């Protein structure tokens, strides 16, 4: 609650500041904290089920009007020789990790935006172009973005990508959890196409229950951990695995929300604007005293 108060204070103070400098804030909405709905949706990725067919990559591109190519070309598994990352031309990619047990099949891991509950990109963005939708999606607003790429610095999962080859209107590209499709009652494109339902779409809290049950029922199949349950304050996309997540190149992250430290320092410096104003007053006092001293010297 206190935090909220501070924020609203910051907002009003900023408004006053803008008033002084003769500016009007048209968009005060950017300041409102994102609402995290209890019923927000999520996806549970079961890496023990994924077969690495890469149909999700095709579906994603098709749904987002990116050049997708021939669906059958996605069966080429030679792409797995190198690790790939989502970029401006592919919002999701699947990687392959050979199994330490050589008689067993490799593990495939789909990578996309995790849709954090406390997104670092949202906190960092200079113009508030990111928002956490009630449905769980973290979406980017092309109307606001200025292309500073601070979201890319902030993201702990290294997801947002930038169109470096565009001179005009380059976009930040990242998975938007198919928000256009889901608002129309459709499934996210990748979830819909997945042949083996390695991607389970549902309410986040239901998915956590499902995941816990799976771990309990098949202790040999899964390690006892759900990635995204608590990492960086929780994410909408979560992963199950039979192997240590670090082996699958997931970054080792704590449970504190990624923007936590940064925001608390920021709010510390700007707490009710007290520190800047007191510094101002202090310097004013010093100036006045020194001037007085000098005047008395002159007289």
């Amino acid at each position, binding site marked *: 609650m206190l935090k909220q108060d501070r924020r609203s204070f910051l907002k009003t103070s900023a408004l006053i500041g803008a008033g002084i400098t003769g500016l009007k804030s048209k968009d005060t909405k950017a300041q409102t904290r994102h609402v995290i709905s209890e019923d927000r949706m999520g996806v549970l990725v079961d890496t023990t089920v994924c077969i690495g067919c890469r149909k999700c990559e095709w579906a994603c591109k098709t749904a987002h009007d990116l050049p997708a190519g021939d669906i059958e070309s996605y069966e080429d598994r030679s792409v797995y020789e190198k690790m790939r990352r989502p970029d401006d031309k592919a919002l999701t990619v699947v990687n392959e990790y050979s199994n330490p047990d050589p008689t067993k099949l490799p593990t495939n891991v789909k990578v996309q935006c995790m849709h954090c509950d406390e997104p670092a990109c949202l906190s960092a963005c200079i113009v508030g172009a990111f928002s956490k939708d009630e449905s769980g999606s973290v979406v980017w607003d092309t109307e606001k973005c200025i292309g500073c790429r601070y979201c890319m610095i902030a993201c702990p999962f290294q997801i947002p990508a930038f169109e470096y080859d565009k001179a005009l209107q380059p976009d930040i590209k990242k998975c938007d959890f198919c928000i256009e499709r889901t608002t129309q009652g459709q499934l996210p494109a990748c979830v*819909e196409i997945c042949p083996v339902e390695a991607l389970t779409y549902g309410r986040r809290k239901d998915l956590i229950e499902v995941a816990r049950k799976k771990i309990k029922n098949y202790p040999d199949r899964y390690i006892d951990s759900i990635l995204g349950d608590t990492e960086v304050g929780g994410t909408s996309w979560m992963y199950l695995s039979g192997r240590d997540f670090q082996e699958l190149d997931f970054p080792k992250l704590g449970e504190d929300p990624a923007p936590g430290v940064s925001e608390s320092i920021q709010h510390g410096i700007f707490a009710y604007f007290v520190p800047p104003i007191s510094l101002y007053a202090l310097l004013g006092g010093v100036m006045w005293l020194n001037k007085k001293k000098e005047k008395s010297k002159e007289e």
Partner: protein
Amino acid sequence: MKKISIIILVFISASIYAQKELEQHPMAKSLECNYCHSCEIPTKDDPCLYTCPRTHMVTLQHPVEDAPEVIVLDELKEQSDLYAPVVFSHRLHAEMSNMAGGCQLCHHYNPPGVILGCQECHENSRSRTDLNKPDLKGAYHRQCIDCHREWTHEVECASCHLLNEKIVADEVQVKDYSEIKHPKIIEPTKIVYNTEFDDGDIVTFYHDEHVNLFNLDCSSCHSNSSCASCHDTTPLKLEPTLDQLHRVCSECHDTEDDCTNCHIKKERPRFNHELITGFDLNKYHKNIDCKSCHGKDGFKGLNDNCGTCHTDWSPGNFDHKITGLILSESHEGNDCEVCHENNNFKKPTCSMCHDEDVTYPDFMPGEEI
């Protein structure tokens, strides 16, 4: 009057409904309810079934001949029209399954009665409330791809179904699979393994003994072996670990403590009970299951004393005829020990009653058949 009739009507309809419920229940009466249901009173709306009755479920084998030959899996059309339906050679697959796990290899929820298809449990919709089991599309694909992938290491969609846009005629061609059979698997009689174990590099494995003598089912050893153990065509055929090599044997044999049980320096002769234990598996014991004698205590603790196993034998209930000798009237009523001193059933001693000149087999205590 009206009220009463309404009440009666309600009662009747309720009882009819309840009866119908019972009739439709897929499970046999012999099963406990809590085998499948987690709550006390399951209803149709909330059957509170356990997540996946894969492990606890009793299974029933059906003969392969009963299996439908071809099934066209076209239920997924409602979800997506990207790919054409799969024409599934069901019986061929059933035959192949029979080599490993039987029907339950795929029909893992296999209660007595009619075998259930996937769509009975797996919803044909990805947006659903019960997320504990995969939807129909997921279930189908997991069932098929897991094996197919093992031997090709690829996931070619086209090996089962073509893209709709690539099909010229609208109709799905149903191929005739009746002539196609999985080739009969040739059973080996003996396999001699050359291992890298120094104290005994040779392991002799008599396959026929395990099948015929020890009466083992194929599935008792081969249930975990995938299609890929024969079909893996990739050059990347990987060496199994030591543990995996021994896993099949260690089900019955001790592979931990004494390696020389199996690993010896020369080829092992066929199994001979008399040579190893001193007890001849005569015609009475030759064809019985090992387990009927070697029960709970494993292979230890038995001697050649009949009474160790046949604890209930007495003159009243033992029919001496099966030994090939019908006892004469004078011998019939004797206790066993009278002739078989010290439980020696091979050769009777006569000296208990007779003089020394009466000896077996010169004098018979009855009539030989």
